[in-house]
């Protein structure tokens, strides 16, 4: 009965946030003297087929990153270390796959497992520190990000090859590459074959979280650690499990590009995707569908921003402002909507009570 308006207000929050972000961005543009009309004209251009593929690819990568952050967020764990886990895992995977110890797609499959294990292990360090020594995972994962950067750079120096200006791991044998999926007929650029991983991970996330005991324990711990303990959840074990899972998903982030495009880990690797994932998870309310929408919005904005400099002469950096404001306002909007929902619900309860009382009074007389 009251489900529909509730879904409505649920959607209202992110939409409101995007509108606010649009206004703020426009104000910045006006303040600097750039053309607001041109900006939105470019941003709202229907993307070309090629760009659409680019958006899907970008969103797939961001989606995995957002999922990785969300797994931990759902338990009130702040895994700021997705970035480090992604880089360590991607390097390890690229190095392993480049050794070509296994033939063809077997190499691909095992490499993906290697990435997940390495990502999980890197996140596991923070988990162990937290459960044994009480070190906040926020601090340890930030430090681990720095260590990951240094470690990968060092290993790249020791184990990588110099190719022109770029140092990279040995290129993966072609038999292990994963071809693209043609998304739009007639368009030559393809969606990463391993974008399938994002879909699979999203479904697995939804199922595990909402349908299994582990997922229930995880959500319960996130909502109230004390209640979870009383219900029999071993919180320490859950902290470790959730961090490992988060790290394993973070390990997947780099696989799309690794097998679909760059075929090696080099200094041109995409950085910062782990941090953007945190924003995407926030935007998507840690919900598998929400994160997908959030990833698409971010990927869309980033992709469209390229044309800004070319067509409107506006620095694409402005889009980072838009993205930042979206995240900021979405947090505020969700809180506003949450309070509103609590009010609606309390009113419903009050009504039900009132009805009961009326009925009782009627029965008495």
């Amino acid at each position, binding site marked *: 009965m009251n489900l529909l308006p509730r879904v409505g207000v649920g959607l209202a929050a992110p939409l409101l946030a995007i509108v606010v972000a649009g206004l703020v961005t426009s104000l910045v543009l006006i303040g600097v003297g750039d053309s607001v009309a041109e900006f939105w004209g470019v941003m709202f251009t229907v993307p070309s087929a090629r760009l659409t593929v680019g958006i899907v690819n970008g969103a797939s990568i961001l989606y995995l990153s957002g999922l990785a952050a969300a797994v931990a967020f759902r338990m009130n764990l702040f895994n700021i270390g997705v970035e480090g886990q992604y880089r360590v895992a991607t390097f390890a995977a690229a190095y392993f796959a480049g050794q070509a110890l296994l033939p063809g797609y077997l190499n691909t499959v095992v490499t993906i497992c290697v990435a997940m294990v390495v990502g999980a292990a890197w996140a596991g360090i923070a988990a162990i520190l937290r459960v044994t020594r009480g070190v906040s995972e926020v601090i340890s994962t930030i430090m681990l990000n720095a260590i990951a950067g240094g470690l990968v750079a060092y290993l790249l120096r020791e184990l990588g090859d110099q190719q022109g200006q770029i140092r990279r791991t040995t290129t993966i044998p072609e038999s292990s590459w994963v071809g693209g999926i043609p998304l739009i007929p007639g368009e030559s650029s393809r969606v990463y074959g391993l974008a399938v991983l994002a879909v699979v991970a999203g479904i697995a996330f939804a199922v595990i979280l*909402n*349908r*299994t*005991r*582990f*997922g*229930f*324990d995880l*959500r*319960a711990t996130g*909502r*109230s650690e*004390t*209640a979870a*303990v*009383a*219900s*029999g*959840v*071993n919180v320490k074990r859950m902290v470790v499990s959730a961090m490992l899972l988060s790290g394993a998903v973070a390990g997947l982030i780099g696989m799309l590009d690794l097998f679909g495009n760059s075929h090696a880990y080099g200094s041109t690797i995409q950085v910062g995707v782990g941090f953007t994932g945190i924003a995407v998870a926030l935007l998507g309310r840690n919900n598998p569908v929400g994160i997908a929408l959030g990833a698409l919005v971010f990927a869309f904005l980033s992709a469209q921003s390229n044309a800004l400099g070319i067509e409107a002469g506006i620095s694409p950096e402005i889009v980072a402002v838009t993205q930042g404001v979206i995240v900021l306002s979405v947090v505020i909007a969700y809180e506003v909507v949450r309070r509103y929902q*609590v009010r609606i*619900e*309390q*009113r*419903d*309860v*009050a*009504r*039900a*009570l*009132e009805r*009961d*009382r009326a009925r009782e009074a009627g029965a008495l007389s």
Partner: protein
Amino acid sequence: MSDTATAAVRLQGIVKRFPGVVANHDVEVTVRPGTVHALVGENGAGKSTLMKILYGVQKPDEGSIEIDGQTVVLATPADAIARGIGMVFQHFQLADNLSVLENVVLGAEKRHGIGDAARREIHRISAEYGFDLDPDELVETLGVGARQRVEILKVLYRGARIIILDEPTAVLVPQEVEALFANLRELKREGHTLIFISHKLDEVLAIADEITVLRRGATVATVRPADVTSHDLAELMVGSELPSPSTEESTVTDRVVLEVRDLRVEDKVGRALLSDVTLRIRAGEVVGIAGVEGNGQTELVEAVVGIRRPSTGTVQMLDADVTAWGTRRRRAAGVGYIPEDRQRHGLLLDAPLWENRVLGHQTRAPSMHGYWIDRHGAVADSKRIVAEYDVRTPGVNTTARALSGGNQQKFIVGREMSGDPVLLVASHPTRGVDVGAQAAIWDQIREARRRGLAVLLVSADLDELIGLSDSIRVILRGRLVGTFDPHTVTPQELGSAKTGAGDEAVVDEATVRR
């Protein structure tokens, strides 16, 4: 109320509507200056709303408020404070990691600054009313009673002459209640006006000069304590006949369900929180634990449920030694657990009721099907609980937070009684629950006991302990120090046993130790 003195507070014709519900109507309250005026009523009778109106948190839709004979409009708490009204909330609003001084001056920095002047003022108030508070002590080191005094000091510091106390005794043990009442009498003597909200009728009768009874949002009577008994008051509150816990014939069998032997629990630095605890509960038996809060009840309950590891001793359930078992395994083996703090330990407040049905039952049907959550089963069984335990809610998709405390508790009790538990560990099962719900919960516990349930009952309510238990053990400083037969024991006897034969020093030590 024939006196001609100007009323300190006069509320006339107050009506407050929330969407779909009228929280207050036809409210007439007159509070004479320099008196303790009690406001009683069941949970949900509209006491809190009325006080929020007087404190400027909410605005009435109709009616007038007079303070010292002047009609006023209170739009915000700041207005109320400016008029000399202060409120002491039931849930303390103190920052644990700040000192008493910092908590008091927070938000009132303009009065006496934040330095020595403020410290002197706090000393002065504390001495004047016998609060015994050190401005530089950290709040986290204070006991519950002292924290409450900090709250009262806060409102006095802000110049309040009319002080609203919202269920101030709900969190206190009897000795602390006495101390509080002494403070309140002192305040009254100094000319302050106190409005005291409660549903504990014996306390109301002990402290109040006048009592106004609220029922379903309306004031139904104003009486003097001398003219009524607590039974009269209760009937005014509920508008009908009253239930009470009463003993029945014994259903105790000879099958031992829980056997705790030589249990010792230590805190982080190795001090004993529980020592030499040996306890046996048989099927169909209710064992009550009486004691001043903080004497080891929480630790005992947690050790039985498996949340806390004992350093020595064993816990045996039926034929199994469960000492090494975790909470989950124990619960799966048939332990029901009604925690002391339902909101923190018993519920996921932001989750719908049906998900709360799963909580604590993550390994068992009907809410689970193997490793998978059985949503239909959980929803169906939640509906059963809502119906059987009379949980007032629009449905099982409502979040637990939206329910009133009593209904939350009824839901928890219903859940913990599900799945044929063999042992129920119940901490204060009816604390903060209104009279109707209390009777229902008592009935359920008695019913389960008849079917052979073993119950470990921890309660601060002596009537409840005496009414439900087959045997009562007294806990003091982590030890079980006495056993009483509920048929013969009086509340007075229990009261003195709890405190170590009335030894004040012992009580203080026990309180401080928390």
